[in-house]
C-alpha cells in the first residue's frame, strides 16, 4: 500500500475532484470540531464565571436558564453530527466515487 507508484500518487494528488474532496471534508471537519469544543468548554467557562445567571428562570417557565442551555446543547451536538453525516453521505461519498471512477479508467 505504501509503495504506490509515485506517478499514480501524483496523478491522484493533482486530480481536481480529489482536491475538492480533501479540502471540502477538511473544512467541514475542522469547523464542526472547533464549534463543538468552543460550545462545550465555553459552557464550562460560563459555569465558573456566571453561575448565578444560569440559575435564573426563563420568562414564563420554571426551567432555569442553565438547564435549558444544557438540554439545547445536547440537541445541537446531535444536529452537528447529523450535518456531517448528511453532507458526507451525499457530497463526499459522491466525490470519492468520482475520483475512483476517473482513476479506474
Amino acid at each position, binding site marked *: *500500500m505504501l509503495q504506490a507508484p509515485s506517478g499514480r*500518487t501524483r496523478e491522484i494528488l493533482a486530480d481536481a475532484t480529489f482536491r475538492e474532496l480533501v479540502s471540502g471534508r477538511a473544512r467541514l471537519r475542522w469547523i464542526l470540531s472547533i464549534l463543538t469544543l468552543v460550545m*462545550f468548554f465555553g459552557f464550562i467557562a460560563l459555569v465558573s464565571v456566571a453561575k448565578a445567571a444560569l440559575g435564573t428562570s426563563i420568562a414564563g417557565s*420554571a426551567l432555569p436558564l442553565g*438547564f435549558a442551555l444544557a438540554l439545547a446543547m445536547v440537541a445541537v451536538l446531535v444536529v452537528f453530527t447529523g450535518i456531517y453525516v448528511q453532507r458526507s453521505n451525499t457530497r463526499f461519498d459522491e466525490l470519492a466515487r468520482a475520483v475512483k471512477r476517473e482513476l*479506474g479508467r
Partner: protein
Amino acid sequence: MIARCLLVALGVAFPSAALAQGAPMVGGRGPDWIAIAMFALTVAITLLITYRSAGSTKSKAGFYTAGHAITPLQNGLATAGDFLSAAAFLGISALVYANGFDGFLYALGFLTGWPIVLFLMSERMRNLGSYTFADAAAFRLDQTSVRLVAATGSLVVVLFYLIAQLIGAGKVIQLLFGIDYVLAVVGVGVLMILYVIVGGMQATTWVQISKAVLLLCGGTLLALAALWHFDFSLARLLEAASRIHPKGAAILVPGGLFAEPVSAISLGLALVFGTAGLPHILMRFFTVSDAAAARKSVFYATMCVAYFCWVIPVLGFAAAAILMPEPSYFNVTASGQFNKIADLIGGPNMASIHLAHAMGGPVLLGFISAVAFATILAVVAGLTLAGASAVSHDIYGQVLTGGKASEHRELLVSRIAAMAIGVIAVLLAYAFENQNVAFMAGLALSVAASCNFPVLAMAMFWRGTTTRGAVAGGLAGLVASVVLVVLSKTVWVAVLGFPSAVFPYDNPALFSMPLAFLFVWLFSVTDRSARATREHEAFTAQLIQSEIGTALAGDQVSLAAAGS
C-alpha cells in the same frame, strides 16, 4: 467529597458510603425471585448468543471484527452499548440525585466526545486500519516502536477501566441479587472471558446490542413512569425535587463540581478526548464494511448517548423527588433520622434501582436490575476483547513476529491473552475490594486522552509526524498521566495516606495531553533521519488511502488493485 464522588462516578458507581454498608440486597427485601429470574434469563441469552457465534471466530477478521460484516445501525447500538457503562446509568443518575445539575454537566462531557470521534477519528481509522487502532497509528510509521506504544496505551486503559468496572460490578450484583462480592466478580469474569474466547467480536457485538436495546427501553420506561407522576412536566418535576432535596433550589444550578476552572477544564478534556482514545470504542469501527458505514455507526451511537443525556437527569431528579419523602428507602436510625443522600439503602448509586421499585414494584425492579447487569457484561466484554487484540495482533502478531505468525497461532495467543487479562483483572478486583479505587477510571480516561489520542491524531493528520515524535509523545502522555494521578489527592492522600497532595488537581489531562502533543511536535521537527524523510513522503499515500480508501464497499477490490 464532591470531587471524589465525581471521579468515582466516572468509572464505576461506588462512593464510600456504599462500600462501608455493603448491605446485601437493595432494601433488604430478601431474595427477590423476579430479579433473580431476569438475571438468569440475561445470562442464558448472552450464552446462547456466544454459542451461536462460535463458528465465526476461526479467522482473524472473524475473531477481531466479526468479518467487517456488522451493519451501521447494529454497530451504532453496539458502540453505545460498549460506551454506556454502569457508571453512566447508575453513577450519573446518582450524581444528579446527590448534586443535581452538576451530574447533567458531567453527562454532557461524555456526549461531547462523540462528535469529535465522528469528525476526526472514525472514517480515517476505518480506511487505514483493519483490526486495532494501532494499525492506523503505525500505518506509515515504524511498525515495532509505534505499535508497541499504542498497544501499551491500550493495555493500560483496558486494565484500569476493567478493574474499576469489575469492582463496581461486584458491588452492584451483591446489592441487586444478594450474591457474595467474590462470587459476583468471579462470575462476571468467567462470563466475559467466555464471550470473548468462544464468540469473539461477533458475540461481544450482540451482547452489546442487546444491552443497548435493554438500556434504552428500561431507561425510557422508567423515565416515562416517573414523568407521568408529574403530568409529564419537566418543570414540575424539577420543582418537586428542589422542594424535598436537602440542597434545595441549589440542585437546579451549577454547583461545586465545575466551579474551579482549571479542574473543570481538565476533567472536560479527559471526558471529551478520552472518549476519542478508548481502544474498545475505536476497535468497533473495524466491524463495519467501510468508512461510510463507520461514520453512520457513530451517528447512531451519538443519538443513543444524547438520548441518554436527556433521560439520565430525569431519572436522578425523579429519584430525588419520589424517594426522599419515603423513609422506607433509607437506613433510618432509631430516632427516625436519616440523611437523604448518604443513607439511601445501598448508597446513592442505587437511586435508579429504588426508583424502579417505587414506580413499578418488584417486576420493574427486577427488570431494571437485569438491565444494570447486562450493562456491566457488555462493557467488560468489549474491554477484554480490546486488550486481547492489543496483545495478540499488535504485540505478538506485528512486533514479535513481524506479521509472519500464522493466523491460527495469533488467534491462540489472543484467546490466552483474553484469559490472562480476565484473570488478572478479577484478581486485582478481589484485592482492591475495600480500597479506594476512584483514581482508576480517571486514570484510564487521561491515558486515553494523553497517549492514545495524540499519537493517533498526529499520525493521521500531520504530515510532519515521525516515528521518533510519535513514540516520545505517546510515552510522555502516558508517563505524565500516571505520575500526576499518583501525586494527586485520589492516590497520594486517599490510597497512600500522605497528608496533602503534591499535584493539586484531580485530573491531569490539562497538563499531560498538551505535553504529549508538544513532544510529538518537538521530537518530529528535530528528527532529521532518512527514516523521517521517508515517513513524510509516505504521508501522501496515507492521505489518499484515508480519503478514498474503502469509502465504497463495492469498489474495494478495484481500489486495492489501483493502490498496489
